Structures are given as C-alpha cells and as structure tokens.
C-alpha cells in the first residue's frame, strides 16, 4: 500500500528523522484548532496518494485566519488525478538553503534495494539530475556507504552527517517495515545546515502485511474492495459502465485493453484467481451487483480444466436470485461449452466463442 505524506511522516518521526512541526485534519473545525497551535505562517497540503500536488494547487501558503478560511476548503475540495483529499496537513514553513533528494527503492530488475541520492532535489524523480545510485542488497546501509553517499553529493560538515544519518534511518525503515519505496523529496538543508524531510513517500509490500499489524491502520479500502479481498479476488474500481471479470490478472488486464480499444469503458477489474467455480463466479457477480454504474458484465474465463457448465450455473443462479438484472456477455473457454450454451439459452447471458465477439456485443449492448 502507498501511505499518505502525513502517515509516512508518522513513521519518519518514529525512526528519528527530522521533520517540521505539522498536524493533519479532516475537517476545517479541527483545522482551525491546529492552526492556532501551530501558528502562522504555515502551508496547507492536500493528502492524496498521487504525486503532482503542487502543480495542481494542492499546496498553499497561509498567513492568517482569513486566508485559512478560504484556502482550507479550496484545497479540501480539489481532486488530483481522480483522487479526492483524504486529509489536510498543516505544516510550518521552512527557511531553506537547498533541496536534496534521497530514496531507497526496490530495484526490480536488479533484484536488490537501491539508494538514489542527489544534491538537486525538489523535482519529480524523472527530472532529478546527477543521481548517485548505489545497490545495497537486502537494504542494509553501513556507516561507510552512508558517508560515501553524502560525500558524493558534495556535502560537508553537519549537513553530510545529517544526510548519512537520515539514510541509515531510511534503511532501517525499509528493512523493518518491508518497504518497496521510501522517499524524501525534498530533503532540505536548513539555514543552520541541518537537514529535514519536507515530504515523504512510502510504499509497502502488501504481501508482507501479515507480518505488519502496526501498518494496518493505514490500509485504505472501499467496502467492495474489502469483500473482494476476503473472497481472494483482486478488484480495482474504474469509472466506466462495463464490469470486467476473468481469471488471472494477465487475462483480465488483456480483456480491459481490448474493451478499451473497442470503445468500451470498464467499470472495474475483477480477477477471481486461477480457477473458476460456481461459487467464485457467483461471488464475483454479487460484488458487481453493488456497483451502481454497471450496465453490463463482460466475463472472460480461460477455464482449462474448468467445466464451463459450472460457470453457467453461477449465471443462472444469479438471475434466479435476482442478484443481477443486467446482461452478461461471456466468453468461456473450457470443456462442455456446447452444453453451457444450451443451459443459458433464453437467459440474459450471452455466450460467445471468442473474446472479441463478447466485447463487441458488450459495447453494443450497454449503448441500448
């Protein structure tokens, strides 16, 4: 999961990384109280799990109560890359000399953790110049490596010490919380030459969740996503009107691509996992029935050893129980597909031999 800035900073604070004073809130009343505690001037920062907040107007300076009353709701109402504000962070303003970049990330192709550091931070990582890159195996950073990185960044004295120290703390965080990415951008050099984390990004390995109860409070899931997870499904909600269901992440992504190529708009990505049974398909239909915007369901199952009649049963049961009243466009690959077609004759489920045909019918079908 990807943590919000204020959540990442909670962890930073716990690990002794220097931060400016800040307080998060989810409504303006609490915000006003925090404004008093913090004292002007400060910045109002929208908390969303995507980058590009500054450009979108999600970070605003605030000098007094009047400005606060105007800007807090403005920032709260922003939508950045489709993401609404989860909270607002008020943070003291900093008088800084320079912005640095520091991160430890899981280098997938090299299969090790890697440090990226630069003396020219404050911009998106793609534009960070003069990157210092060091591979560090399973994530451990020795004093020697930490000092070397600071030196290569051209830093000296207490600033170099501060960066080396911050890097070691990031390493500890990466290892102990099983992070895929821990990033401080910018890491600021203050007027007194110490360093402070002005922003924070933190992505953890979801597969290690079972070892990290302490991180579960950061888990953000819609009710439907939670139910999907309980059933062992993967579900990603999208904003179109055709629900896409299949078995296997690759196959469902592929179906999503083809649907989009043909002018269809996916309402969700739902992977029921490797196999497909009457129960799993019925459960998938149950989840989809809770999404209001769905006008049709596109099902693409590569059964292999699965009998398609088993899947057909799930559709029949779903109509019988009035679970769904919208059409299903389905391509079922597997054994007994002729029998499955017979079973579904006259129902609102259409079976097609190829996924292309099912997609065309679905796109036409929801237009009606």
């Amino acid at each position, binding site marked *: 999961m990807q943590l919000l800035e204020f959540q990442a900073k909670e962890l930073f604070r716990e690990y002794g990384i220097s931060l400016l004073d800040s307080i998060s809130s989810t409504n303006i009343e609490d915000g006003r109280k925090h404004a008093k505690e913090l004292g002007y001037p400060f910045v109002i920062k929208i908390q969303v799990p995507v980058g590009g907040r500054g450009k979108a107007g999600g970070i605003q300076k605030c000098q007094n109560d009047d400005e606060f009353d105007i800007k807090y709701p403005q920032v709260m109402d922003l939508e950045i890359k489709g993401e609404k504000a989860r909270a607002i962070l008020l943070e003291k303003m900093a008088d800084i000399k320079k912005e640095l970049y520091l991160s430890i990330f899981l280098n*997938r192709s090299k*299969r*090790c953790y890697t440090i990226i550091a630069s003396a020219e931070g404050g911009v998106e990582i793609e534009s960070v110049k003069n990157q210092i890159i060091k591979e560090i195996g399973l994530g451990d950073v020795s004093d020697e490596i930490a000092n070397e990185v600071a030196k290569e960044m051209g830093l000296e004295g207490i600033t170099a010490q501060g960066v080396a120290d911050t890097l070691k703390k990031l390493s500890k965080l990466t290892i102990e919380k099983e992070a895929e990415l821990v990033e401080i951008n910018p890491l600021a050099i203050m007027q007194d030459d110490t360093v402070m984390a002005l922003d924070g990004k933190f992505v953890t390995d979801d597969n*290690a969740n079972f070892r990290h109860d302490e991180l579960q409070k950061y888990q953000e899931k819609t009710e439907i996503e939670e139910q999907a997870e309980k059933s062992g499904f993967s579900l990603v909600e999208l904003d179109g009107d055709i629900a896409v269901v299949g078995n296997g992440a*690759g196959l469902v*992504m592929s179906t999503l691509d083809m649907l989009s190529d043909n002018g269809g708009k996916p309402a969700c990505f739902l992977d029921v996992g490797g196999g497909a049974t009457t129960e799993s398909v019925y459960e998938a239909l149950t989840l989809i029935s809770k999404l209001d915007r769905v006008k049709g369901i596109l099902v693409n199952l590569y059964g292999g050893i699965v009998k398609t009649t088993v899947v057909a049963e799930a559709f029949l049961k779903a109509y019988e129980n009035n679970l769904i009243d919208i059409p299903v466009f389905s391509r079922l690959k597997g054994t007994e597909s002729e029998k499955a077609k017979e079973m579904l004759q006259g129902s609102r489920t259409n079976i097609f031999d190829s996924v292309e045909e099912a997609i065309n019918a679905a796109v036409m079908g929801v237009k009606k």
Partner: protein
Amino acid sequence: MTDIFGLLKGKPEDSDYEKKGVIVQGITGSYGSIHAKQMIAYGTNVVAGVTPNKGGQKFEETIPIYNTMQEAVDATNAKISIIFVPAKFFLSAAKDALNSGIKLLVAIPEHVPIRDTMEALDLAKQKGAVIIGPNTPGIMIPELIKIGIMPPMPFKAGKIAVLSKSGTLLYEISDALTNAGFGQSITIGIGGDPVNGTRLIDAFEMVKDIPDLEGLVIVGEIGGDSEEMLAQKIIDLGFNKPSVAYIAGRAAPKEKRMGHAGAIVMGTYGSAESKVSMFNKANIPVAKRPAEVPVLLAGKMEK
C-alpha cells in the same frame, strides 16, 4: 548459464533421461495434491512428496512422502522440486529444498513477501540453483514434462519458446499458437511478482540457443522494466529468430496494482508505452490482442 534442458531432460546417456525426478513440497495439501496428480497424468516423474509430520505415508498409494527435503533428496536423488505451500511458509520450504541439493525450484505460491523471495534467491545463487517464480504457473516441455499447474490442452510439442509473466495468458496464447500450427519447445512462467527468481532476461538466456528454435513469444505486462531489459538484450545480441511480444495492461490506470503484485505503473516506470517502444526498437512486433500473436509470428517467419 543455466542449462535448463539439462535439468528438465538430462542427457541421452543418463539412466533417467527424459524421466527426471520431481519432488512435490506440500503434496498432501488440497492444491498440491490436485496438481501432483495432474503432473503425474501428464507424464512427469513425481518421485516423492514432502509434508512435515506425514513422513512414511504414501501419496496415491505409490509415491513416498517424507518429513524433510533432505530425506526426500537422499532417497530419490532428485534435483527438481515444486512448492505448493502457503506463501508465508514459502521461504522455509525453499531453504529446505536449496539446502538439500535441489537445483531447479518451481515456486507456485502467490503473495510471497518480496523480502522472502530475495532471501531465497540469495541462497539459490550460493548453491548454484535456479528458482522459477514465485507466483508462476510453472515450466514445461510440452508432451514431455510439466512442472506446474497449467492445463495440458493448450500446449503441443514444437519449436517456439514462450516466456510469460501471466498464467492464463500463457495458456491463452499457447492455445492460439497451437491452433495455428506452432507447437512449443518450452514454456516458462516468469510469474507476476515484482521480484522474479528467473526474470524474462534469464529465461531468454535459457532458450536463445536451442538448436532448432524457430521463434520466440514474450508475454509481458505492465510493471517493472524486465521487458525493456530483454528488448535491449535482444538488440545487443543481434538475436534474429522470429519474435513477437504481447503486453497486457495498456488500459490500466497508473499507481494501481492490477491483480499481480508486480503489475503496477509508478510514474512512467513500468508503463506499457515504454515496453512497446523498446520492443519496436528491437524490431519485435507487439500484438494488440492475444489472438494476434500467431498471425504476427507467421508474418515474421515469411520475411
């Protein structure tokens, strides 16, 4: 470099040529037992199973079950194992296998923590062993040996190598290839995790020198940059066997995990555009649909 055919088939002078023994870790679990039976039905020589505390029992009345990998390896001398244990037990099962002399480890479980995969990989490196997966459908030489969970129907013996991050797309695309008359010399499931025991580039190294190889099919998806690395390798080597790629996830939103732990675009890292453009640079056409793969492959062969 890994001699994958040496591991899977052996040499004609070997007494167990084309009958290499495979140990199934987690053979008494529901998933493990179903697929052990399916592998046996396919002709894979399953020689032993391992389930702690069930040593001494027999699977399907014939295959001995041991408590530990060391006992199973001592008794059978097998060099291949396949793991079906739940993700949280993967690391200890993998260590048990690698420390007992297993040289090819096929890791089926999904949801293995990345750190555990990396630790298992470190050990595999020390021991000179190969891990396929985790989160893989497995590896097979069609009509000879299947070490995995793939259904048998889509596959047919032939001369095309198929490397895939996705399971069901591997079946789907192999099916399309088979129907078009392109059998497969080997299929390797890379797995959908962020860290793969065998990356696309490693799998390519395993298959690129197959003497009668007639073509290569690469089934990738969004996330990471292993497709880009492979395309670069193909350019650097001047590999010129007919090759076709397919990339799933063009329509996926950014910063969302699409079912596979590894299928996520972060900024521009892992995007479909980046992969497609690298394959184009390598003169490898990228199919828009799975069904288009054999069509493009046939086109490449005519040239």
